[in-house]
């Protein structure tokens, strides 16, 4: 099979804003037809990367290739990409149909072809009945769909989305996550999406690049980032994480015993993915939903356990979150699904054992 060039190939991209490195040697490749997200807190440089792909910012170093073609000195109006702006940036003086038809009109597509393309694009975003409206007459969600249609109508090689759902309320946001993903599959188009919202990125993306302070920390599928974060930052940024800082006390074959200054007990970790020696400092991380609470002292085989007491119970409908104090300065978050009606559950002050499968712990060397 012939090797296709990547949809977007970015090599060692650098952008400086004054003395600070907004984008610090970013390299990544987006595959054709992929839903790729740049995830990170504000100021991570993800929007800068997106704007450089679109052509609105000029990189200080590095190269961007789209479908194998270098984008050096190519202005935005001659790049095969279209951007969906965070604020939508709809043309307020043009109707929905004129907004959507703007791109094809500028490219000199025939009137007849423009009309049919507008119809197809509005069908795709389910907005056919609003062709003659002006943007201000539409709801936020509808404006979002017009912005999408206005970009997709051009059949771009890559669709760029800048915080596409940030202006929508929670309910609509979750609907649009599903919708956006299915539009992407229908349009068979590469999507590159910038977001600071980790749930959004995980739900929609095939792959995610986590960015922080201008650098890409990890690129991977959502499950890779969640299950095997490469750094504490990634683990903390994606989902809630419980942490325990400790020192390797001794090594027993495939396991190491960890002791932590705040704790009375000790725990064991698998050594299959990590090389540590006695005395190494490590951080052990555990997801709240991988923990169990029990009253029994002895656990099942392959389980680890720490003793603690319930400090707070947070009821959120679908589950209960327990804040469990394990020792001096160590409070863990335990999520227990609310899968049994009428269960009383534990209350503040109860003594409990927190248990987990040894293999569920992510261990990072410091």
């Amino acid at each position, binding site marked *: 099979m012939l090797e296709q060039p990547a949809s977007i190939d970015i090599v060692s991209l650098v952008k400086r804003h004054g003395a600070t490195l907004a984008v610090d040697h970013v390299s990544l490749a987006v595959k054709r037809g992929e839903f790729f997200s740049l995830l990170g807190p504000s100021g991570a440089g993800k929007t800068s990367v997106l704007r450089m792909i679109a052509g609105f910012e000029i990189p200080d170093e590095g190269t961007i290739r789209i479908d194998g073609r270098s984008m050096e000195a190519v202005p*935005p109006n001659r790049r095969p990409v279209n*951007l969906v702006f965070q604020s939508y940036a709809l043309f307020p003086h043009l109707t929905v149909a004129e907004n959507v038809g703007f791109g094809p009109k500028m490219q000199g597509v025939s009137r007849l072809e423009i009309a049919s393309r507008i119809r197809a694009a509005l069908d795709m975003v389910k907005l056919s009945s609003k062709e003659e409206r002006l943007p201000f007459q539409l709801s936020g969600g509808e404006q979002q769909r017009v912005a999408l249609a206005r970009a997709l109508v051009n059949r771009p090689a890559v669709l760029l989305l800048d915080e596409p759902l940030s202006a929508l309320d929670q309910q609509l946001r979750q609907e649009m996550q599903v919708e956006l993903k299915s539009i992407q599959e229908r349009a068979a188009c590469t999507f590159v999406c910038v977001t600071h919202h980790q749930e959004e990125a995980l739900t929609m993306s095939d792959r995610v690049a986590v960015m922080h302070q201008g650098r890409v920390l990890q690129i991977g599928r959502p499950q890779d980032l969640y299950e095997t974060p490469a750094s504490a930052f990634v683990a903390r940024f994606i989902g809630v994480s419980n942490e325990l800082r400790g020192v390797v006390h001794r090594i027993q074959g495939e396991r190491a015993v960890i002791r932590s200054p705040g704790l009375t007990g000790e725990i064991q970790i698998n050594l299959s993915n990590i090389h540590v020696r006695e005395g190494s400092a490590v951080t052990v991380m555990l997801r709240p939903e991988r923990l169990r609470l029990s009253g029994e002292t002895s656990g099942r085989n392959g389980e680890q356990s720490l003793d603690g007491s319930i400090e707070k119970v947070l009821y959120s409908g679908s589950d209960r979150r327990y804040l469990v104090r394990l020792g001096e300065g160590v409070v863990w978050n335990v999520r227990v699904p609310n899968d049994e009606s009428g269960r009383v559950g534990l209350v503040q002050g109860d003594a409990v054992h927190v248990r987990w499968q040894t293999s569920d712990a992510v261990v990072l060397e410091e």
Partner: protein
Amino acid sequence: MRRASPAGWSASSGGAAYWWLLSPGLLWMALLFFLPLCVVAVMSFAGRGTYGGIIWSFSLTNYFDLLHPLYVRILGQSMLLATATTLLCLMLGFPLAYYIARAAPGRQQVLLLLVMIPFWTNFLVRTYAWIFILRTEGLLNTLLIKLGVIATPIELLYSNTAVVIGLVYGYLPFMVLPLYVSLERVDRTIVEASWDLYATRWAVFRHIILPFAKPGVLAGCLLVFIPSLGAFLTPDLLGGARSMMIGNLIQHEFLVARDWPLGAAISCVLMCVVAGMMGWSLRAAESLSRQEHDS
């Protein structure tokens, strides 16, 4: 009992407080604007006495007199100079207004202040300054001769060119300010979006910036054209005998020829021309925006 809501202040409620608050303005306009206007209108139909007095009669003689080629030429020349002034102000003012609207917010305030600073000096004084710049041994000619661009001084002062220069200088701020207001509303991301959607720089200007600027262009043009048409001081000081404008003609009839009724008739014609132009341009703007919508 009436509610103390803002609706209580509406004209339809017609409360005593409403009329009390309005009365100073109404009185001012009635006494100092509407009444004199009526006097001028009535006077335009009166006749002139032998020694410059007014004979209160009714005839259209003054208006027929205005059909004399000399007066028609002066009116035509005024329209021409005012149109030239307006177009030049638009050409100079648009880039300037766009530049100010795109500057950083702090800089915008400084630049707007610079546009308005000339108003701090008396217009008469500023017009005299132009005489020093434009006259035969003036600043401009001296400079051009020193630079070797020209050998003999060019006759600039006392010409239509000098009048247009003076008018453009005087009324440019009235073009820049409304243009700035309309261009300032153009969101940067909208310009970027059109650029992203394959628009060339010219297409961005034509399809995005110009529609936004249209109300500003219209307001600016009216604000420049109307005072230019009736300008008196600038053509009086910078224009020659052949650069007389309608404002100078009115002044001449009232103060020199002492033919008040004829002066009043010219004033009425000028007013009608201005009102007609305003009505026409407003309608044009309306139909323009409707067309834009239909296409």
